């Protein structure tokens, strides 16, 4: 599978804010305690390219081990890419000086899956939300307090909550706090890593709707990491499906869901649980499990589990094909 071309033709005209091009992250596998020797490489992310546009949401779907979280970490500058580039507003962040890096870090924020572990239990809400502002903005105490009150209000809490500690909140409320904290420095992009999967069903819709309202209000872009396809369909404008460190299919949400083309995407959709008992699902249950990224299969990485496997799949790396404007797939079937 070659890297997906970075410039799919698109109908939307929103400017590209954040762009990944041929991004790779390989982790060394070492042996030996004192004199350690690299015995192999785990190719967690192996050449992904995508674009996050202003005010839009890109979803990355895939199963555990597909590299979606590592991709997010690279965008957050928590991991250094082995190869490939990340461009923010046209500028490559690897070449950026420390001032620009700091600016980048404040414009790309994150909300994590588990609001029980992502908020410091010893800090009051006021300080939790103000912390990114203290680091990144030069505000007076008074301004800071007003901002905190406004943010709490925007995420559906009240200003008196500022004096409480995280343990005094329910899961949904904590996720609201995490969102307020991410929004505090007025970022352009927020990486949402499974933002609702740890929450109760009746709370999930609240948070998803809140995120979409805030997107309009703050004109922020989201990069949504998720495994639940219906959530992705509801929230995203663009979707990238990842398998073993690579993007196998990429396109505008509606197009991709209506004309899912890669066998893996189709299998994911068939495996997803139906929303009504009368929905008949195509019987397409994948056998086996995701192979180890330490030793990914030759040719197309999906071929050992693919129901439509052909002879050349185990030999040749599939080319990227554009099926519809912006909708690209890498599979020998097309």
């Amino acid at each position: 599978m070659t890297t997906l071309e970075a410039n799919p033709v698109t109908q939307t005209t929103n400017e590209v804010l954040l762009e990944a091009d041929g991004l790779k992250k390989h982790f060394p596998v070492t042996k030996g305690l004192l004199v350690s020797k690299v015995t192999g490489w785990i190719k967690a992310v192996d050449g992904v390219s995508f674009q996050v546009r202003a005010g839009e949401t890109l979803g990355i779907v895939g199963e555990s081990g597909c590299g979606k979280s590592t991709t997010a970490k690279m965008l957050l500058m928590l991991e250094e890419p082995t190869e490939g580039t990340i461009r923010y507003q046209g500028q490559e962040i690897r070449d950026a000086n420390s001032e620009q890096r700091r600016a980048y870090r404040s414009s790309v924020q994150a909300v994590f899956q588990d609001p029980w572990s992502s908020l410091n239990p010893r800090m009051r809400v006021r300080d939790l939300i103000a912390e990114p502002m203290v680091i990144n903005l030069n505000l007076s105490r008074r301004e800071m307090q007003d901002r905190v009150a406004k943010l709490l209000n925007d995420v559906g809490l009240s200003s008196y909550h500022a004096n409480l500690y995280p343990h005094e909140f329910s899961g949904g409320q904590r996720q609201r706090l995490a969102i307020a904290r991410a929004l505090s420095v007025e970022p352009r992009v927020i990486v949402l890593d499974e933002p609702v999967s740890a929450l109760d069903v009746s709370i999930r819709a609240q948070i998803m709707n809140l995120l979409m309202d805030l997107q309009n209000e703050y004109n922020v872009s989201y990069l949504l990491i998720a495994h639940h396809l219906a959530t992705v369909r509801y929230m995203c404008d663009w979707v990238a499906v990842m398998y073993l460190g690579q993007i196998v299919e990429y396109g505008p949400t509606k197009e991709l869901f209506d004309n899912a083309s890669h066998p893996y995407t189709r299998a994911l959709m068939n495996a997803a649980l139906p929303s009504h008992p009368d929905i008949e699902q195509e019987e397409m249950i994948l056998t086996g499990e995701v192979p180890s990224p330490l030793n990914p299969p030759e040719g197309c990485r999906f071929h050992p589990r693919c129901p439509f496997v052909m002879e050349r799949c185990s030999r040749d790396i599939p080319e990227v094909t554009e099926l519809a404007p912006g909708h690209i797939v890498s599979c020998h079937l097309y």
Partner: protein
Amino acid sequence: MTTSTTENTAPVVLEVDGLKTYFETRWGTVKAVDGVSFNLRRGETLGIVGESGSGKSVTMLSLMRLIPEPPGRIVDGQILLEGQDLVQMNDKEMSEIRGSQIALIIQDPMTSLNPVFSIGNQVGEAIKIHQDIPKRTVVQQVLNVLRKVNIPAAETRVRDYPHQMSGGMRQRVVGAIGISCEPIVLIADEPTTSLDVTIQAQYLKLLKELQEASNIGLIFITHDFGIVAKMCDRVAVMYAGRIVEMGDVRDIFNHPSHPYTEALLASVPKLEEDVDRLYSIEGQPPTLHDLPTGCPFAPRCQYVMDKCLETYPLQFDVTDSHYAACWRLE
């Protein structure tokens, strides 16, 4: 989703009547399960749906008689498993039934297997306890069970330890322990939450096959209506310790009659169609030691009436096999 014509005549294997499980805490009595009644027929799949704090897991623990006492206690009610009341049994009698006639598949395969015992040892444990058979036969049975849950190369994997297996494999081992003594009733507590989507599909298919092969009564404890839609024949929706609506799976999906069920169904995004905006239920589930008088859902209900705030609603029949506890149906 299976043949529903034969099921209505199958014998009832489990009958729960007026089950109440309370916990004494320093904030007062928590009525975790407060008057739950349902029955389960042979070969039938019942889904118990609810959010955290709805009492679905305490119901499950009560059925297994695994409520920690104190602070918990089954205060009232009957659990009749083929006519024998589990509530009245002493610990010794119960331990003969638990695992052999009524078994449990626990939520998290990463933590529910003991890391220092081999797979064969753990699957064989229940067989050894419940069946008086020679050691060689136990080994044979363990292999049979492992093959039933589609573990490849069972002869070698039987000596493996949990860390040598993937998540999907471990989940199958947990499933194998559940069915090892051919129970009459099998309870699956959120059996797929920690699995990937494609592995989840494999596992659900396997559970369905196992159930059909030995006609087990299966209870799914879940928060996911997707699992209910895919697997269950009947559904009980729980809220704040009680069943608020119960009926055949199609009745529940087509005519949800309790506002909570209706709102829950509307708040789940759909894979098959575009939804402009999800319905979202405001507020949060109530805390159980401080329940409002009247209907506990009233503060979040869009149809709330004066009566709802005063008295807990009675159960009203929507059809013969479908009821909901809501004053709107009066």
